[in-house]
Structure formats: structure tokens, C-alpha cells
């Protein structure tokens, strides 16, 4: 910020005056997004009509929409969706709970990074698809197993983000805290964590979307319920391709919803900084 700025120029108790962006005639963002969806739907419909795909290969958008509404209304999707959401929620708590302390440790200690990083990267490089059956074997086919898979997939991005965040703490602020005799715990709580928060939230954005993928993959590998199971049912025994698409739509919306939740939390926690 301009240091020459006179104090009187600063709005009292408010936000520093910001120059408005050069006004150009522009459509609002939400209208553009809506337009994009419309174009996609029309292209989809044209493809179905022109190529003449049967419904069991590629159902038309209005067929999927109708099936989506019906499947939610008659309670076909709901129990499966609830199971998946529960798995993700438990997985988030476990995964984030483990990633934050480890990330902070890796960020603070070069030694810890040198010793632990190889295992850590090797674990991430192993495809979750290959590990999921093993986890199902150990933890069974219930909630715990699916939550474990979610936790594993979101563990890496959140840990790395925390590590980078903790490292990005301004050493000048650390010296400031030292001059006022901050204990290590106080420094972590009042300096390191707030400074790392934007990076951690960035990792969490990636993490929650991966957690959705993890839950579905886990359910595929062996589960009794969840949206992954419903996909298998829809294309298998039920042979209901519109329901398959309706389930995919549900999964996509779930991912978007979780992502927006993190963005919202980020706005609350991080707020405005420069």
C-alpha cells in the first residue's frame, strides 16, 4: 500500500478506497456459466438425435433430467448418496486430522522431510485403485473402509499444502513473535497456522474433490451401498442407463457442493489480506 497516503484519505473504520474496474459492457458471470451449460445440453441433444444413439447407450439430456428428478423423488438415490456423503465426511475428519500435524512437522523439520518424504511420495504414486481392494480386505466393506480410502486420497494434497504453508511463514513475523516471548505452542497457534491457512485451504479444495473420487473407487472395489454401488447396479442388474447418468450427475453435484463449502469456509477464515 502507498506509504505516502495521508491518514485522512483512509476511510474511517472501513475499507481503503478501491478504484473501480474500467467499466466495459460485460455479461455477469453467472449468465455466462448458464450459457455454457445451455450450449453443452444442446450439443448433447444434437448428438443423440443426429447419431441416433439408443437410450441405453446415450440417453438424451431431458431423459436424464427426468430420471434424476424421479430417482430423487422416489428415494432411489437418496440412501446411496447419504452413505457416500457419510463416508466422505468421516474420511475428511480422519484425513485432515492426520495431514495437518504431519504437514506442520514436515514444514518445520528438514530432517523429518528427508526421512519421511520417500514413503510419503511412494504411497501417493501407488494408484488408489490398486490399494482399494486391500483396504476393503483389511477393514471390510463398510463405512470404515470407504472412509479410509477417502482419507488416504486427500491426505497427500492436504499434507503438502500444510507443509508449504508452514514454510511460507514470514521469518520477520517469527522474529517479532520471539521478541515478545512466544512459546512454541503460541507461535504455532498465533503465527504459523494463520499464515499457513490460505495454502491449507488450497490443499483442501483439491482434497475434497479427490475424496469424492476416493469414495466412488472404494465402493467399486467392494461395498454394500453408496453411489459407486448404484452405478454398478444401474449399468448391471438394473440396466438403467438414464439412472447411471443421474447418479453421475449426483456425484458431480456432490463434488461441486463440497468444493463450494471449502471456498466458503476459506472466505470466512482467511478473509481479506494483502
Amino acid at each position, binding site marked *: 500500500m502507498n506509504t505516502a497516503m495521508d491518514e485522512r484519505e*483512509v476511510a474511517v*473504520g472501513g475499507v481503503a478506497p478501491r478504484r473501480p474496474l474500467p467499466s466495459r459492457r460485460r455479461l455477469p458471470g453467472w449468465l455466462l456459466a448458464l450459457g455454457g451449460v445451455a450450449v453443452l445440453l444442446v450439443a448433447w441433444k444434437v448428438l443423440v438425435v443426429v447419431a441416433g444413439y439408443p437410450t441405453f447407450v446415450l440417453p438424451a439430456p431431458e431423459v436424464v433430467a427426468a430420471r434424476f428428478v424421479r430417482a430423487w423423488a422416489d428415494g432411489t438415490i437418496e440412501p446411496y448418496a447419504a452413505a457416500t456423503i457419510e463416508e466422505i465426511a468421516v474420511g475428511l475428519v480422519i484425513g485432515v486430522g492426520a495431514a495437518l500435524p504431519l504437514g506442520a512437522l514436515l514444514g518445520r523439520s528438514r530432517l523429518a522431510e528427508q526421512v519421511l518424504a520417500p514413503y510419503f511420495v511412494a504411497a501417493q504414486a501407488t494408484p488408489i485403485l490398486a490399494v482399494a481392494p486391500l483396504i476393503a480386505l483389511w477393514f471390510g466393506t463398510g463405512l470404515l473402509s470407504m472412509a479410509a480410502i477417502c482419507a488416504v486420497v486427500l491426505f497427500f494434497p492436504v499434507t503438502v499444502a500444510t507443509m508449504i504453508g508452514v514454510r511460507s511463514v514470514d521469518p520477520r513475523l517469527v522474529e517479532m513473535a520471539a521478541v*515478545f*516471548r512466544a512459546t512454541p505452542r503460541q507461535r504455532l497457534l498465533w503465527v504459523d497456522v*494463520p499464515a499457513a491457512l490460505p495454502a491449507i485451504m488450497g490443499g483442501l479444495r483439491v482434497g475434497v474433490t479427490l475424496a469424492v473420487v476416493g469414495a466412488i473407487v472404494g465402493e467399486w472395489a467392494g461395498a454394500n451401498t453408496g453411489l459407486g454401488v448404484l452405478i454398478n447396479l444401474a449399468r448391471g442388474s438394473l440396466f438403467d442407463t438414464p439412472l447411471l447418468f443421474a447418479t453421475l450427475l449426483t456425484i458431480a453435484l456432490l463434488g461441486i457442493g463440497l468444493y463450494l463449502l471449502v471456498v466458503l469456509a476459506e472466505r470466512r477464515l482467511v478473509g481479506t489480506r494483502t
Partner: protein
Amino acid sequence: MSGSIRVARLGKRFRAPADSTGAVTAGTTLRALDDVTFEVGAREVVAVVGPNGCGKSTLLRLIAGLLTPDEGTVDLGGRPVTGPDPRVGFVFQEPRLLPWASIRDNVGFPLRLADRPEVERQARVAQLLALVDLSGFANARPHQLSGGMRQRAAIARALALEPSVLLLDEPFSSLDALTRERFGLELLGIWERTATTIVLVTHSIPEAVFLADRVLMLSPRPGHVVADIPVGLPRPRAPEQVDTPAGNAVALQIRHWLADGAETSAAVHLEAERREHSDG
């Protein structure tokens, strides 16, 4: 007496920083300070002036207990300094406010770290904000304030635990010329209302003359005290006093000692010092 400072035979060495190829010359040390001895009386204002890289910032950090001396001792009010000390308030070159916290929380930060109860914190912060004329900005974030206001908040924070000694490390250097002059006046106003001893590092000769009772001149590295110049202008001070014959005489003395040092100082020293202190 509380507020007095005694620095005796102080010495500090640093390991030589890595050269441009990344290789460290084994066993090489840089002597930042050598045999520094001086005393500051309670409520005195002392300016430390010296060429770039003479260890002024190092000296201030040793007094604050942020660094440990290799030789010699620092006593505050007759008791030795062994680590970051509650009797010292420190103002850095930059405000160093927590960007995510309000001005209120920033000023109250030392009180929170000292586990003072909420009620006491609130009352003390209100007092401090009034002292530095920032009462209307308790809820503002640092980035919403001007540079001068941010530095005043940093002074309020340094005074939070009622230190007997206030150390300022080039507190004016991040401010523009007009703000600097007003800031100097404000600092003296704060000094008059609080019973603190002030040691400040500065590059500016007029500032040293305007603010200080005494000016300590440090030599180029390794820094030691080469002159102790009394200013002798009456208080309360006004900026115009710097331009009186008495003020000019003091400025001339400072300039003389600085020029002396410059002749013996080499560009190599400056480069090394710049690297060494580039983080603070």
C-alpha cells in the same frame, strides 16, 4: 535503576555467509561487533549511528536478547539480559504486524502471549491506541492503514507490556519524508508520556540530532563505539532546532565521524553485511 542499560565489552561473530557458488569457507567468521562498551541512563534517548554494515542492528538485537553475545554482557537496570526480555519493547524496521489480525489484536499481541486476562487486555489496548492516536482504527486491518499509522501501531505493540526500554531499529526508514518528520515528533511525544529509555538506530543525521540526548558513533565492521556525542539541545524539541548553530555543530561532528569511517570501510564489507542482514 530500572531503564538503565549497561553494555560491557560486547562482541559478536557470525559464520561467514555462503559465497555465490554456494560453498562456505570453513571456519571463517565475520566479526560484527568488537569490544562495544557504553551506558545509557534511565529515560535517556540515545541514537546509534554508523556506516552501513557496522552491526547496529546486531547491537540492538543483543540488547533485546534476540541474539546471544560471544563476548561481554548486557545489563538492564543492573540485571543481565539472557533472552528475549519483558523489560524491552522492540520496534522493527518494518511494522511487522500480523496481516490477518485487526489493529486491536496486533497491539494486544504481547498481552495475549503473556496470558493476560481478556478484560485487562481490552483496557490496555484501548489505552495504547489512544497513546498513538489510532483509537478509531481498532478494527482495521494493517493493509488498510498508511505506512506511518502501521509503524505507530508497532510502537503501541512494543509498549504493551510497559517495558522500561524501547529499542527501535531504523523505524523511519520505511516512511516517506513528510511522515518521517511527523513520526519523530510523535515518538518524542510518546517518550514524554511513558517512562522509557530509548535506543534507536538511524541512518539520518538530522533525526539523530532531533531525537537524541547522545549519539553513539559506531565504526565500520567490526563495529565499536568511536565517539559518544552529546546533543545538548533543550527539550521539548522542535524540528527547527536541528537547524540552529548548536544543532548544526552536532550534525557536523556526526558527519565528521561518518566520513572517517567511510575511508576505512571497503565495498566488500558492505556486500557481506547486506547479505547477512537481508533477512532483517
